[in-house]
């Protein structure tokens, strides 16, 4: 009997079983950012301890950086203080820090893979729920809280209960104008935002096999929005091709040997699963959220559901969502007027995302009255995009072209919605207040769909452009 990648990786990293029945799990790679780490470092210092494995710890700054300019000191004193704290902590403990201006700074979940740090067969932790992104490489990667950040700093381990594994099989080709974002929004719509609690999601099937690494990252990024702390795709040639030549990936013979090991960590054909679901990719169209959680979505050509269509347990949340969004059951999402268009975030700020959005935008203009911005996920992506001239395409159309950071995904920086502005966003969360205004409203969609909405000033079907 074979085994799933998840269980192979878990067993390999198990240090011991704890008296509570939990596993003491060794963490192969620890990624650190400025928001969830300062208190963790402080607790470490209070306990008079150091970082056990600084060579397995890497830091960047993303949430609080302004994207209009990276000039120091940051205009916001609190932000500057957080950045300095991380600089101090990284220096004190010998942690490699991808600081702003280094050429390598970016959103933590963008730069891990970009640097070749994220590799198959690893356990990866970070004080951030979207750490699931790294599962795209066949790693077991998950978000943790700050006390657990301290635990990993001090011990390179966590005390965790082993989750069950659900294989989410999506098969078939994607139609034109349908992207990885639509696939994962659809999966969440089908399985629910709480459906993945207690599970690791293995994303398998021909649809994921055909995806690029960037697309797989988009999917795994949002596993947590479906309640699954871990989401992963088995490593294959696409994975290896992406990693070859990356700064922190193995080089030369090491790399060729690595491929053998990485392959051996993939799920076996006869691996058992605790649960399986199958989804037909042909059913998936461009998808847009209309509510206040990522499960409240519809196909762009559908009307918004009647309250009677919701199961009893979901109706109150749906009502609250309609109230907050100013939308009504039976409304069409298509044609909904937008105020802001945001292309960015660890879900969709990679080069291929920017290319797709630029393709839509080229030769068109942002609709009057719409504020539109493109925020590359890393300094490297920004450079590459500029080499291709994408920034000119966006600028010519009336988009702002920004420095790398989390930007308006969560608005811990100057990029925020104002009042009840409605934002077409390529990010991952449409929670109330998420984009910086308590009454702000978010419609999640693919970057191409955001671009289409920006030029039309209204939610549009990218297939019509």
């Amino acid at each position, binding site marked *: 009997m074979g085994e799933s990648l998840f269980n192979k990786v878990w067993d390999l990293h198990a240090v011991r079983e704890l008296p509570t029945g939990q596993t003491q799990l060794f963490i192969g790679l620890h990624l650190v950012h400025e928001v969830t780490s300062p208190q963790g470092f402080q607790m470490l210092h209070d306990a008079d301890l150091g970082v056990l*494995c600084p060579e397995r710890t890497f830091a960047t700054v993303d949430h609080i950086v302004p994207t209009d300019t990276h000039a120091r000191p940051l205009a916001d004193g609190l932000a500057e203080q957080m950045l300095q704290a991380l600089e101090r902590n990284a220096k004190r403990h010998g942690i490699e820090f991808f600081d702003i201006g280094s050429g390598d700074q970016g959103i933590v979940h963008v730069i891990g893979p970009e640097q070749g740090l994220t590799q198959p067969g690893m356990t990866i932790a970070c004080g951030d729920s979207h750490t699931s992104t790294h599962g795209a490489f066949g790693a077991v990667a998950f978000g943790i809280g*700050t006390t657990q950040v301290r635990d990993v700093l001090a011990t390179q381990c966590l005390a965790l209960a082993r989750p069950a594994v659900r294989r989410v099989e999506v098969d078939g080709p994607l139609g034109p104008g349908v992207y990885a974002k639509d696939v994962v929004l659809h999966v969440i719509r089908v399985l629910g935002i709480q459906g993945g609690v207690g599970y690791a999601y293995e994303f398998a099937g021909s649809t994921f096999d055909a995806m690029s690494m960037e697309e797989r990252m988009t999917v795994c990024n949002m596993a947590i929005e479906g309640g699954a702390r871990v989401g992963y795709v088995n490593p294959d040639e696409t994975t290896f091709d992406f990693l070859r030549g990356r700064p922190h990936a193995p080089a030369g013979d090491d790399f060729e040997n690595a491929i053998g090991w990485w392959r051996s960590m993939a799920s076996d054909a006869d691996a058992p699963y605790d649960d399986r679901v199958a989804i037909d990719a042909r059913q998936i169209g461009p998808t847009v959220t209309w509510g206040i959680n990522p499960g409240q979505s519809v196909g762009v050509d559908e009307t918004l559901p009647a309250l009677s269509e919701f199961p009893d347990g979901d109706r109150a949340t749906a009502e609250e969502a309609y109230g907050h969004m100013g939308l009504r059951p039976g409304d069409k999402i298509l044609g909904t007027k937008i105020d802001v268009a945001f292309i960015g975030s660890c879900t969709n700020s990679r080069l291929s995302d920017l290319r797709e959005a630029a393709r839509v935008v080229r030769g068109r203009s942002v609709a009057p009255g719409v504020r539109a911005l493109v925020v590359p996920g890393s300094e490297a992506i920004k450079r590459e995009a500029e080499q291709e001239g994408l920034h000119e395409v966006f600028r010519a159309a009336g988009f702002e072209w920004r420095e790398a950071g989390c930007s308006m995904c969560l608005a811990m920086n100057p990029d925020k919605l104002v009042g009840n502005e409605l934002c077409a966003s390529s990010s991952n969360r449409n929670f109330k207040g998420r984009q910086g205004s308590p009454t702000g409203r978010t419609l999640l969609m693919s970057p191409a769909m955001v671009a289409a909405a920006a030029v039309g000033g209204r939610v549009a079907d990218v297939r019509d452009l």
Partner: protein
Amino acid sequence: MSSEVEKIERREGRGIVVRGDDIDTDRVIPARYMKSISFAGLEEFVFADARRAQDGTPKDHPFNEARFEGASILVVNKNFGCGSSREHAPQALMRWGIRAIVGESFAEIFAGNCTAIGLPAVTAAGDDVAALMDVVELDPASPVVVDLTAGKLTSRAGSAPITMPAGARGQLLDGSWDAMRTLLAARDEIERKAGSLPYPGNFPAR
């Protein structure tokens, strides 16, 4: 950090009710209040956007109501704490005075964070949560007891079973919820594990 082992077997106090499913951690503590290098003072911003209008005027919210002042047992519905992994959320609740949370269900990272800071998050059946919510709202001064040892919740509504993941419950009961010391006790095994992993190249420096 305390080096004392605190076993958490039971919490007793007055209740406070926050109704609604899928209350995410952005709502418990909006991101803009996380701009700090410490957790101190977070209690002030718990449920900030739900409690105050943008001009600062208080809105109707349980955390604003005098009758719930001094409450320590928070009662919630389904999927509480979904979204962001920010420990700021349970920290803000705990610093406000919450000592246990009873709900229909919790998001996983949130529940893990609660355990790590010694804040039991226990689940009860929908009907039992509904009954508890009703009695707490009716008589906020009445005591609520969360008994982890017995796996039982007691209030004016009577007694009801509670559950939580076995490992987390074990950590609270045996005082190993602050896991760092426990983990570090296996230092030799950790080093052996680190040395034996077949990671190729082990992050070559550039």
